[in-house]
Each structure stands twice: as structure tokens, then as C-alpha cells.
């Protein structure tokens, strides 16, 4: 510990956007017969443009900006989900991307089995997860349903389980796309406290959020992204103020 960091050097990410998501042999065969040049209309998107960023140990980085500015894409590049088209990303530390909770849940399997499955996907050994199973079930208040398949859970129960597994971890680098804590009031308070403690435990936090209060509350550094580029970075208060000022002339909802 003490030497976790992330460095992005001149990272650019371009990808082609297809008008239809799937392409079939049937289509390409028809195109070939009709001598169409290339049947798949595409447009190229530059999602990130020459982004350089150093996130040192201890930093709580907030990322703000309009929808489509590249915030979530940046998180996905940091977490290795998207390989950059050019540039370099250096990661030192155990990264846990909580872009969405409940990934890999298999609804045929019991809650208990899903805890192990999710743990494995996040990179934890079975032994490690075994030590945490009780705490996870306790927090989710699902002890008595541990052995029932998830498909019989209510959506609230499944969410509680997903949240509890995802937050019962010790990441060195935590990537968050919005802070999730849906549920009833009793649950929300509990969940927020747990989220807070997770954030306190992690060496580095990268948080994407549209809620400026959260950025000011949790972060000690912020960047403002626009069209795939970092337009401003600095203390959260300043960056948030600049971002809000830019939006002020044309007051947009939300």
C-alpha cells in the first residue's frame, strides 16, 4: 500500500458506431449480391481525445460533465474494459469497478452461490469470500433466503444482495458510476453509511456523478469533461462552480 496510482498518457479512444447493433451473414450476402459497397452505415466517434491524467494515492477524483462527454468511457478505460485506441494507461493497485451492481448474477442459483460467483468475477478467491459470506448476508438481511434461487427473490432483495456483495470488499482503487443506494428509507440510510465506509477504505476513488453535492462531499479533486477532453481540473468547489456557470446561460433541466 501507499503506492497505488493510475496514469493515463495521451489516451484517445475512437470507435465506430453502427446504425444496427448486429450484422448478419444474410445481410452481407444480400449486399454482395446487390453489389452494395458496404451495407453497414457507420460513424466514427471519438469518445476520448488525448486525455492525460495522473491519479495519485489518496486522491478522491470526481468526474463531472454533460451526458456523452466521455465520463463513463473514461471509467471503462481505467478499468480496462475498453482498450484505448492510442495512448497508455498504467495501473498500480487492485481495481474494483462498480459500474453496476449485480453483474454475473445467475438467477437459477442460490443467493449464497451467487455471492461466490460475484466474488470470483471481482477477483476474490473462494476462501476470501467464505470469510465474508456471513457479513454479506447479514447486511443484506437475507440470512434465511441464502439457499433459495435468486429468481424467487423480489427485485429489492436481489438489489440488496448485489449491493452487499459489491461493497463487502477492500479495493485499492474504486471506480464508481454514480452512488447507488436505491431502496426503502431504512435501507437507504444503511446503504449510504456502508458506501461511505467503502469509500473511506479505498486508497483511490474515481467517482462519476451528476450530483454536484456528492462530488463536493466525497472528492478532493475534480475534472470537468467535455467532448472527450478534460477542460478543467482542480479543487472540486472550483471545478463544479465553473461547470455550473457554463450551464447557467441556458438553464437546462437536471
Amino acid at each position, binding site marked *: 500500500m501507499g503506492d497505488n496510482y493510475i496514469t493515463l498518457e495521451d489516451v484517445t479512444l475512437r470507435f465506430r458506431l453502427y446504425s444496427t447493433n448486429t*450484422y*448478419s451473414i444474410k445481410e452481407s450476402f444480400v449486399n454482395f449480391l446487390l453489389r452494395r459497397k458496404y451495407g453497414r452505415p457507420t460513424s466514427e466517434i471519438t469518445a476520448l481525445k488525448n486525455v492525460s491524467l495522473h491519479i495519485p494515492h489518496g486522491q478522491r477524483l470526481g468526474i463531472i460533465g454533460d451526458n456523452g462527454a466521455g465520463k463513463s468511457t473514461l471509467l471503462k478505460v481505467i478499468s480496462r474494459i475498453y482498450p484505448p485506441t492510442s495512448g497508455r494507461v498504467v495501473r498500480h493497485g487492485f481495481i474494483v469497478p462498480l459500474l453496476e451492481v449485480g453483474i454475473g448474477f445467475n438467477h*437459477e442459483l442460490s443467493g449464497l452461490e451467487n455471492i461466490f460467483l460475484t466474488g470470483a*468475477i471481482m477477483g476474490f478467491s*473462494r476462501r476470501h469470500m467464505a470469510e465474508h459470506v456471513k457479513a454479506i448476508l447479514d447486511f443484506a438481511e437475507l440470512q434465511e433466503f441464502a439457499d433459495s434461487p435468486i429468481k424467487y427473490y423480489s427485485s429489492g432483495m436481489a438489489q440488496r444482495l448485489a449491493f452487499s456483495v459489491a461493497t463487502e470488499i477492500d479495493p485499492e482503487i474504486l471506480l464508481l458510476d454514480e452512488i447507488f443506494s436505491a431502496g426503502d428509507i431504512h435501507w437507504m440510510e444503511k446503504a449510504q453509511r456502508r458506501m461511505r465506509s467503502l469509500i473511506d477504505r479505498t486508497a483511490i476513488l474515481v467517482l462519476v456523478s451528476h450530483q454536484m453535492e456528492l462530488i463536493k462531499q466525497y472528492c478532493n479533486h475534480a475534472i470537468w469533461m467535455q467532448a472527450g477532453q478534460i477542460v478543467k481540473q482542480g479543487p472540486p468547489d472550483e471545478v463544479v462552480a465553473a461547470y455550473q456557470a457554463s450551464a447557467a446561460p441556458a438553464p437546462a433541466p437536471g
Partner: protein
Amino acid sequence: MTLAYDIKEIWQFREVIKNFVSQDLKVKYRRSFLGFFWSLLNPLLHMAVITLVFSLMFRFPMGKYALYVLSGLVPWSFWATSIDGCCLSIVNAEGMIQRQYFPKMVFPISVIMQNLVTFFLSLLVLLLILAPITGYVPSPALLVLPLSFLCLVAVSLGVGLIAAVATVYFRDIQHLISVFMSAWFYLTPIIYPLEDGPIPHQYRWCFKLNPMFSIVQMFHRPIYDGMLPTPSELTAAVIVAVVALGAGLAIFRHFEDSLIFSL
């Protein structure tokens, strides 16, 4: 990135593979009353039907013929279900791939591992059932089976990797593949013997060009004929295995990183 790096990375994700495999087997097991036995019963019934129909049609001696069908059908089922499973392995994992980094090879490898379990159990069970019926005497040639098995896995993984990538770019390819595989099945001497079979003598050499023939022959020889594969059959099988795996790895690694943008 080197191949050694890839292998090391997949090793780091072994816990994920283990979980995918056990999850698949558990779900299979739970879904029905007979549970896991279905996956064993299935090839057995399949084989029983084929044996009955064809031994009547071609007047093969039933017991010996059953053994012949078994020794080819079990490896073929492994190959066919592996390709079928690999096809959708990456497309179906989209939800996970979009939210967390995985070496993508984890998914086809998990499919192969799941089928391995079924393969071993069905081979064992079928031999146990058939041995008393046919008066089967195991021959020392069975010692070649680990090699046969390695070739089979290498071919299945190699072609499976290609199928997995191809399906991402052409979603309807799985339908083509399944038709193709069933044609391939009938073109491979599994339900009929090549020697003394219904194929006219002058055409038999064509059947020997089929790459899967050399793989299946690696099982026919020790289990059915009780002898080692001939040196040329063995060489062919090893070459087929190495080429398929090499091509599969090369193609997969070439596309691995850009897959995510087409999901």
C-alpha cells in the same frame, strides 16, 4: 502481448472459470428430476437409436456395432457441443464484459471445461454399460487415449475460439454452423464404418481427408479395434490439432480487444 502473458492472465482468472463451470453444472443438475443423468442418458439413447436403426439397415452385428458408434459418438458430441457452446459464449457474456475486464478467452474455455465433465462421465458410463453386453476386453492400446483426448480438446478449443469471435460479428452464424455440423457428422465415419461399410471403395480416400476423421480415428482405434492408431493417422490427428489450435489462438487474440465495440 505475448501468449505467455495471456496464459498467465487466464490462470489468474481460474476462479472465474471454476465458478462458470460449476454454475453451469449445478443449473443443469437442478433443472430436472433426473438431473445430471440427462446429459449422460442423452448420448446413450442417441446411440441406442442409431445402433438399432443402422444395424438393421446395414445388417451390422449389433453389439460390436454399438461399441463402434460409442467410440466415435462420444468424442463427436464433445466436439459438436463445444462448438455450439463457444458460438454464443462471448455474445451471452456481454452484460459481464461491459462492466468488468475479463480476458475474453475465459468464456470459450469455460464452455470446453463444462463439456469435459460430461465427456468423461459419458465415456465411463457407456463403457461400463457396454462392456458386459459386448464382452469388451480393454486393450493396452487404450493408453493412447490421453493423446487422443488432447487432440480432441485442441481442435475443439481452436475452432471454438474462431466460432466465438465470428458470432460477435455475424450473429446468425450459429444457425449456419449447426447445419454445417450436422452435415459434417454424417460425412464423418461415426455411424457407419469406413472399412467394410456402405461407402464404395473408390471414394473412401475422400473421407480420409476430413480432418475430424483423423481425430475420431484416435478413439476408434484403441476403443473399438483394440489397436494403436497407424503412424499416419496419428500424425494427421496431431497436425490437425496443432493447426486448429494455432489458428484459433491467432484469430482470437487478433480480435480480442476490439470485440467489445461490436457487442
